[in-house]
């Protein structure tokens, strides 16, 4: 063991000149912003009050946790991430199953099903806000009117639902793509064996296909969570976190603190909270993914 460490140490020593540029860049890239965020989170630093800049200890955190808006933001983040995850996985699985079946025009259908993923988030949000969900000239309002249903002003009565719809629309293609490729790797003779064993379509889905999708689902959950925690453009272009704080997520709270209130210290404290939350979620996800990968 000691010998091994020695050899390892010598190797590290020898490789260091070659390794160092990458390690230094990575360090600057990730550690410096983190360190500066931590540093600012302990300071009074308001851009509207440029002369005063001093150490306040944990007061920024104290203010953050005593503000009911912070808890709302955490709750909103969790609601958004969890809802979009559930919707994109369910709809994504259904779409993947559909697109895996043989039918004429399958190639074009696959392309269209994937295409929302290529639309930039602000553009997608604006299309939904102005062309689809708008109560006066939106497509959805018109269609609901055809059936005699009341028109809903989505962004004022159910802003979070509207946001979840938009973000889900953006992320369903990702889930579909990953799950479709996973379905294609399913050995067709397993399905045939199940057919001969008397498993109907639902039993085949329950006992053969869904277990096969366990691993890709874990990957989708992990990837989407990372990206969904930092959803920003969709909120800015549709609701700007409102009405009130109904759609203010933790990410958006940082933005409000930093660029609307010019309170760098408070924004940094909220940023640290976001980092902690992301790490808790990340740790939990890594564990569950690792477990499903080891199976």
């Amino acid at each position, binding site marked *: 063991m000691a010998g091994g460490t020695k050899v390892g140490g010598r190797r590290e020593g020898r490789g260091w000149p070659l390794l160092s540029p990458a390690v230094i860049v990575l360090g600057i890239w990730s550690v410096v912003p983190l360190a500066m965020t931590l540093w600012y989170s302990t300071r009074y630093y308001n851009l509207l009050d440029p002369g005063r800049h001093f150490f306040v200890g944990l007061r920024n955190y104290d203010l953050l946790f005593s503000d009911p808006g912070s808890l709302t933001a955490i709750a909103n983040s969790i609601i958004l991430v969890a809802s979009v995850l559930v919707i994109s996985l369910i709809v994504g699985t259904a779409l993947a199953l559909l697109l895996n079946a043989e039918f004429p025009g399958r190639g074009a259908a696959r392309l269209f099903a994937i295409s929302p993923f290529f639309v930039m988030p602000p553009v997608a949000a604006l299309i939904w806000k102005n062309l689809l969900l708008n109560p006066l000239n939106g497509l959805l309002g018109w269609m609901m009117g055809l059936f005699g249903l009341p028109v809903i002003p989505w962004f004022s009565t159910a802003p979070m639902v509207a946001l979840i719809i938009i973000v889900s629309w953006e992320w369903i293609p990702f889930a579909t793509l990953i799950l479709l490729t996973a379905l294609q790797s399913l*050995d067709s*003779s397993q399905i045939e064996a199940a057919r*001969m*064993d*008397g498993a109907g379509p639902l039993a085949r889905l329950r006992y053969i296909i869904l277990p096969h999708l*366990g691993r890709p689902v874990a990957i989708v959950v992990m990837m989407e969570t990372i990206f969904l925690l930092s959803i920003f453009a969709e909120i800015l272009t549709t609701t700007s976190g409102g009405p009130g704080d109904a759609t203010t997520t933790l990410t958006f709270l940082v933005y409000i603190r930093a660029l609307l209130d010019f309170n760098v210290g408070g924004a940094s404290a909220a940023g640290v909270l976001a980092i902690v939350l992301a790490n808790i979620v990340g740790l939990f996800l890594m564990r569950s993914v690792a477990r499903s990968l080891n199976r």
Partner: protein
Amino acid sequence: MATLELRGVRKTYGTGEVVKGVDLSIKDREFVVFVGPSGCGKSTLLRMIAGLEEISAGELLIDGVRANEIPPDERELAMVFQSYALYPHMTVAGNMGFALKMAGKPKAEIAAKVAQAARILQLEALLDRRPKMLSGGQRQRVAIGRAIVRNPKCFLFDEPLSNLDAALRVQMRTEIAKLHQELEATMVYVTHDQVEAMTMADRIVVLNGGRVEQVGAPLELYRNPASKFVAGFIGSPRMNMLEVAVAGHDGAAVRLTLPGGESLAVPARDALVKTGARVTLGLRPESLNLADDGALRGKVEVVEHLGAEMLVHVRTPQDDLLIIKAPDEARIHPNQTVGIGINPARSCLFGEDGLALILRVDALA
């Protein structure tokens, strides 16, 4: 316990016909092997029996009842796939009991049947493992166990041994043959390996290009092939083929002129040959021997020593390659010129259409 009957069964994909009218009847408790080169339609035929492929034309009867429209799980057949097709996230016991679970059988009954099959296949110690943790031979046994548990009318095997290494394949071959005797079940087995067909089958069905070339017991096919294709496919090393001319014939024998000019009398009753016709003489490697005064001469190219016997590859001046099976001795070397004697008793004659001209009624004697 079941009989299978195929009546003019065909399979077409678009405009291409893969199976071109197969008539066959499989008796109860029979072990029938479909054999043929890849692309001959043998797997498609099996999959049609299983119900995994639709039958384009013709009829399939199971126990005398038309089964074309019966879905695969209601035909009461069990299939063992080439890739085993085990369910990777279920244990061995879960795999074997899956069909019974789907049929809604009580847990105790499933456990009892799984345990019984596991005992037959010596899988008792592995019941809690997942397929990933098993060797190739064990996975194969689980796949067979999954079939046994269902107590099917007929077992279908689709090239089940082709993913195993050579030693294991020989062992599994005998295990499957033993299983056939123990279970007293009807079995249909598909393979491209004529050795598997010869060693396991009660009857072999040789398929070529979607058609049945010949159906018969292994020895019957070996000694009395109906066509040049069957003669070349069954038997290892292959039957030697020589282009010869018919010099004349009487009621008991056909006189042939060999490529070197020597003549040979082949015993044959009422052969359908004309004097002067070009025919193909088929000679098994064991019908040839090394003899200095033999009818043919040639140069040794390769000698394969198998211990008890050797295979001598000889090139004749007419550029025919003959393989001779002889007792192994060290005196034969490459590039040596040897004489080849012919024992015509079990030789075959094929016409220009590739069909046999002699029927050896004594073939099985």
